[in-house]
């Protein structure tokens, strides 16, 4: 069957599944809309959390990032998983015991301060909204690439699907669709990876294949990759290329940011018990780890395949570069999309890919009697996942599945983010700040309208992406790390922490982090307004803006602690609240909200 038809069928099937779930899992109360009635099994919630967490970027871009950065990309692997330890040990069980619906609600109640709650709402909305723009773009791109629809039509189709299950079902509908989406995305990710690992190393598990010898060779894959890269004038795949302090802070910022992202935290409000929240964080990481331990294998193997295709023999000999006319079919397919571009700079009809900035390759070429005029191949990193099934010559249904997987990853994360935004609007702003007497029925209606509004705004930004969309990761993680995580943690672990301390800490942590990001990336990301060029030698101690969230968090802790020392202790009922949050018994009683 033709690929296009098959893709329509596979994507269509998954979409009908999501719609079926939406009809079955409608929400009848605010408890169901905000927290799925707190009836989700910890394993099921783990699966939903994994889909919620793994975005279009994790699915499509991460392996490519690893392919080109090698060892340095470990920051993403460790950073985006290590946060779950913080969640499980320091936040999830206690916030579940607290038994409310939103993250700002805990911050507002615990610090008996509407100011604290407002700061938290602003951070949540800014972080989630910037994040969701990327997902919307992912949906539009996936549709246009695989189904050859135009970008806007793709985006509207995605919005319509999310609208259907998120507005009808709230957290309940989102949870069950996320479970289905996890199954789709993990199959789509692992099937090609297993086949490629088998082809290259003879081992079915990519996690092992990556560290073993190539088939019919005694050289391990990674050693071979190091040799290839050095020959082409790059640094070794396994070598560290950036400074150590920055790597450590970057990793830490991603960990703290992960633990502080509201759309992840609220998933743990949906399990029945405190002990389920602990366990569920573990299951979430199991399901995430399946993809995250596969990704470095996909990255290294895809890069090996690519360089092997272009370079057919010893590096530096002209005849060993692939003739452009002999390029394989998948190469042609991806040239059409513009993700792979060839420019025959030296006019020899062959494809040369190497590091322009290093002399190694050029010298070798000169020694072999020919002249190089610059690397001729441009490779978009997303291709490492997207073209994988074609490179491995897998059947068309696998390619169709990858399309459905990419869409599942983007849709599930978008829905989780929209849930965090809409519950902050209807519960923290409308119910808590504007109309505290609102009836349950009207709050549910307000929640549905907020959800519809959030989808419309996200769609608008998806169609007209602001220039800063690419910078969102730094912003979202910076906000979560420097404001939300420290406030939550101190609220639980420091009984003496009071309103003044928490608010001062959040404002300082957030303020310093934002100023640092804007100094290098421009005020509000407006191009040209940055005060210093965004290059490592201009960074304070070499710390990049993306890595600064951890510093902001430390400042938050410090300021909060100092201010709380010189201001009045929190009232008795707040101290009792903290004591109560610290023990599991009684969590069931909180379900009846």
């Amino acid at each position, binding site marked *: 069957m033709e690929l296009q038809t098959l893709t329509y069928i596979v994507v269509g099937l998954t979409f009908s599944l999501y719609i079926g779930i939406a009809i079955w899992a409608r929400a009848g109360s605010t408890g169901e809309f905000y927290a799925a009635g707190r009836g989700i099994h910890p394993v099921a919630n783990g699966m939903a959390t994994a889909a919620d967490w793994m975005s279009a970027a994790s699915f499509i871009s991460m392996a490519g990032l690893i392919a080109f950065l090698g060892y340095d990309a470990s920051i993403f692997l460790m950073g985006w998983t290590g946060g779950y330890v913080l969640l499980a040990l320091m936040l999830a069980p206690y916030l579940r015991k607290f038994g409310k619906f939103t993250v700002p609600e805990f911050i507002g109640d615990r610090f008996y301060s509407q100011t604290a709650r407002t700061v938290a709402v602003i951070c949540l909305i800014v972080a989630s909204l910037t994040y969701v723009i990327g997902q919307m773009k992912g949906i539009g791109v996936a549709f246009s690439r695989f189904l050859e629809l135009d970008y806007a039509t793709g985006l509207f189709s995605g919005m319509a699907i999310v609208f259907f299950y998120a507005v009808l079902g709230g957290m309940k509908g989102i949870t069950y669709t996320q479970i289905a989406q996890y199954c789709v995305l993990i199959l789509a990710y692992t099937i090609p990876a297993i086949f490629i690992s088998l082809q290259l190393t003879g081992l079915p598990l990519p996690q092992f294949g990556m560290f*073993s010898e190539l088939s019919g060779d005694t050289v391990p894959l990674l050693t071979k990759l190091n040799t290839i890269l050095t020959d082409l004038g790059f640094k070794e795949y396994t070598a560290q290329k950036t400074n150590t302090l920055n790597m450590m802070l970057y990793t830490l910022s991603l960990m703290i940011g992960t633990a502080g992202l509201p759309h992840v935290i609220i998933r743990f409000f949906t399990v029945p018990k405190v002990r389920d929240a602990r366990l569920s964080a573990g299951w979430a*990481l199991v399901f995430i780890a399946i993809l995250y331990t596969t990704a470095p294998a996909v990255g290294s193997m895809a890069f090996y395949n690519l360089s092997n295709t272009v370079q057919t023999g010893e590096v530096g000999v002209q005849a060993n570069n692939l003739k452009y006319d002999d390029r394989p079919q998948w190469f042609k397919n991806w040239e059409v999309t513009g993700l792979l571009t060839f420019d025959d700079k030296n006019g020899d009809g062959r494809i040369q890919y190497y590091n322009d900035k290093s002399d190694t390759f050029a010298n070798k070429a000169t020694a072999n009697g020919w002249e190089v005029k610059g690397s001729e191949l441009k490779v978009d990193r997303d291709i490492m996942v997207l073209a994988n099934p074609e490179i491995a010559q897998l059947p068309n249904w696998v390619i169709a599945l990858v399309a459905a997987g990419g869409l599942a990853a983007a849709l599930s994360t978008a829905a989780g983010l929209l849930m965090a935004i809409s519950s902050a609007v209807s519960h923290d702003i409308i119910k808590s700040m504007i109309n505290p007497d609102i009836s349950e029925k009207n709050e549910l209606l307000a929640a549905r309208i907020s959800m519809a509004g959030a989808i419309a705004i996200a769609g608008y930004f998806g169609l007209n992406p602001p220039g800063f969309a690419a910078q969102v990761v730094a912003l979202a993680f910076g906000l979560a790390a420097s404001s939300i995580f420290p406030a939550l943690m101190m609220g639980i672990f420091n009984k003496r922490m009071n309103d003044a301390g928490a608010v001062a800490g959040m404002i300082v942590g957030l303020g310093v982090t934002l100023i640092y990001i804007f100094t290098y990336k421009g005020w509000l990301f407006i191009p040209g307004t940055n005060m210093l060029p965004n290059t490592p030698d201009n960074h304070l101690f070499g710390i990049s803006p993306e890595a600064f969230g951890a510093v902001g968090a430390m400042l938050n802790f410090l300021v909060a602690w100092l201010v709380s020392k010189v201001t009045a202790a929190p009232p008795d009922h707040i101290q009792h609240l903290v004591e109560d949050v610290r023990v599991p018994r009684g969590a069931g009683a909180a379900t009846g909200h």
Partner: protein
Amino acid sequence: MSENSSSGLAYWKANLKLVAVLLAIWAIVPFGLGILFRPLLSGISIGGTDLGFWIAQQGSIYVFLILIFYYAWRMNKLDREFDVHED
């Protein structure tokens, strides 16, 4: 059950101790073995590269998993020991 009681306080202290130990491992493995002290471990080779690389791209994720499941198991036991468990 409130933390003011001596048993409640002991429960919280036991929890903090457990969290401190686990977070120490959480920090040492990725930041220590995976990044900072990786050059010191470069003599130990594994599958075509060094141990530090494996820890950074695989091992630390497995360690995180073990830490969370151990914590969940141990805390459930503590909950019962101190009689603060649910139902």
